[in-house]
């Protein structure tokens, strides 16, 4: 009888341990509405730039008038401009100025007759982020005008112009049941060009129907922390583009992605994010599958 009891106990334990939860090799975790983030058309016309007009008597420059456009930050952002002789390293005095709401500014400089270049910096003492060379360094001849170039003026071995580059794979991830509207906007942006000194990238949600812009905050690094130093140019010989950057934004009562039509990326001052971007350099339009989810009368966002 005791033996039978023992064997029965073993049998019960065997049966109990054999009971396993059924598990599938793969389980659907939700769907992503894909968004490709690509450079805007004609990106060179969307970044800060402008022209300079030079008045000279012979080889002596008497006046340089800088007309800058698309400078981010508006009246709250301070810029500085100065003349430079790249052959000797002599510089004129820095003149500070602020662009208007549309990013335009005009500055006149006249304190360095042998100047070869005008330089603009994003800040009173920041490194050069725009420049225009109006004198031939070998012949000394002065051109009456020149275009402003955006980039790292003080890069080695020579100034490094900025060019819009990179792409992103974004998505609106709907977890759980179809129709739950439990969305998260996320994605990875690769090979972005290093921002000019004093600048950074800012992501925006945009509704083209209502022309509403909502900033999404800074881009994130691989640890999903706010990425900093997007304007730090690697030394010569190393790839001069940024490591992978990420977006990760949860929907909330104040932020319903269904009321938006696209994601944009703009180049902004690192110390100042405006309410709306002057111009954007990357765009990712939400696909038809997602736009079909838009409510009849958007009220949120």
């Amino acid at each position, binding site marked *: 009888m*005791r033996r039978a009891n*023992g064997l029965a106990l*073993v049998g019960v334990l065997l049966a109990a*341990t054999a009971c*396993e939860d059924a598990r599938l090799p793969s*389980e659907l975790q939700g769907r992503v509405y894909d968004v490709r983030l690509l450079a805007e058309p004609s990106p060179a016309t969307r970044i800060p730039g402008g022209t300079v007009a030079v008045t000279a008597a012979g080889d002596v420059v008497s006046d340089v008038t800088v007309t800058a456009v698309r400078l981010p930050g508006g009246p709250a952002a301070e810029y500085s401009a100065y003349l430079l002789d790249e052959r000797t390293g002599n510089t004129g005095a820095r003149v500070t100025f602020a662009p208007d709401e549309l990013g335009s500014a005009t500055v006149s400089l006249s304190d360095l007759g042998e100047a070869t270049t005008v330089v603009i910096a994003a800040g009173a003492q920041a490194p050069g982020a725009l420049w225009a060379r109006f004198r031939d360094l070998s012949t000394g001849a002065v051109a009456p005008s020149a275009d402003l170039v955006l980039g790292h003026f003080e890069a080695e071995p020579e100034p490094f112009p900025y060019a819009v580059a990179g792409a992103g794979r*974004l998505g609106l991830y709907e977890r759980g049941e179809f129709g739950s509207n439990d969305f998260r906007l*996320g994605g990875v942006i690769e090979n972005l060009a290093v921002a000019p000194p004093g600048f950074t990238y800012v992501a925006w949600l945009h509704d083209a129907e209502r022309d509403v812009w909502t900033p999404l905050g800074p881009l994130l690094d691989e640890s999903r922390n706010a990425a900093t130093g997007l304007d730090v140019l690697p030394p010569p010989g190393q790839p001069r583009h940024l490591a992978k950057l990420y977006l990760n934004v949860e929907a909330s009562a104040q932020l319903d992605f269904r009321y938006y039509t696209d994601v944009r990326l703009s180049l902004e001052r690192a110390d100042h994010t405006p309410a709306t971007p002057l111009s954007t350099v990357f765009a990712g339009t939400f*696909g038809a599958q997602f736009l079909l989810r838009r409510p009849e009368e958007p009220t949120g966002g």
Partner: protein
Amino acid sequence: MRDSRQAIRRGGLVLGMLLLGTDVLSAQLQPGEFLISLRAERVSYANSAALEPSAAAGMETMYFLTRHLAVGIQASVARPWTKGEYFPLMRHTYWTPNSANDTTLLYVVNQQVTAFDYGIQAEYRLAFDRWEPLVQVGAGRYTFFVDPQSQPQSNRDRRTFSGFAYSVGGGLSFAVSEGARVTVAISDRVYTGFDRDELSLSDRLLREDRFPNPDPPPPPEEDVIHNLRLSAGFSFAPGRGR
């Protein structure tokens, strides 16, 4: 009152016999005897291991050097499922020729692996009437056989991974007859050099990198994991009466 006096006397007798190394019952195993055990087990892997708890089956053979001390070998096999949610999600994108479809489905993928745990062990066993408390220590190896059909294309050659293991545990045995016992035991199976990424099925070509999975992240990886094994088994001593 008489009962408690009898119990005290009986306990003292058992203790005295233990100290003198004298048999309490003829069921107690003698030097030179073997005890073979078959076990049903439940293994709860460390939380960081990315393995679901699993049923297992085990066997051990112990040789008694003295009435209390035995050495032997043990082996057990389990079939746990991996926790796919510890690894990146896998994506399945539908594309039409005009790229009109813009939806990707995300999956968590799991596999059922075969886990072997084997080695030598030593046991110290006392005897109180039919009850025999015991402690065990062991050392050996663990080997995981992954599901060859589930492996990602980028890692098709992966088949097994293994490492050094040791254990410590204890239990209670009940002699149902002179040669047969039932035993329940609990032990900590410690696996060293454990790399849970070996269990991942995330093909690097198909893994979803836009959305971290899971969120918040899983427990950090551990090189040494502690796994709890509960077992119940039937033992018999060959050559003894049942």
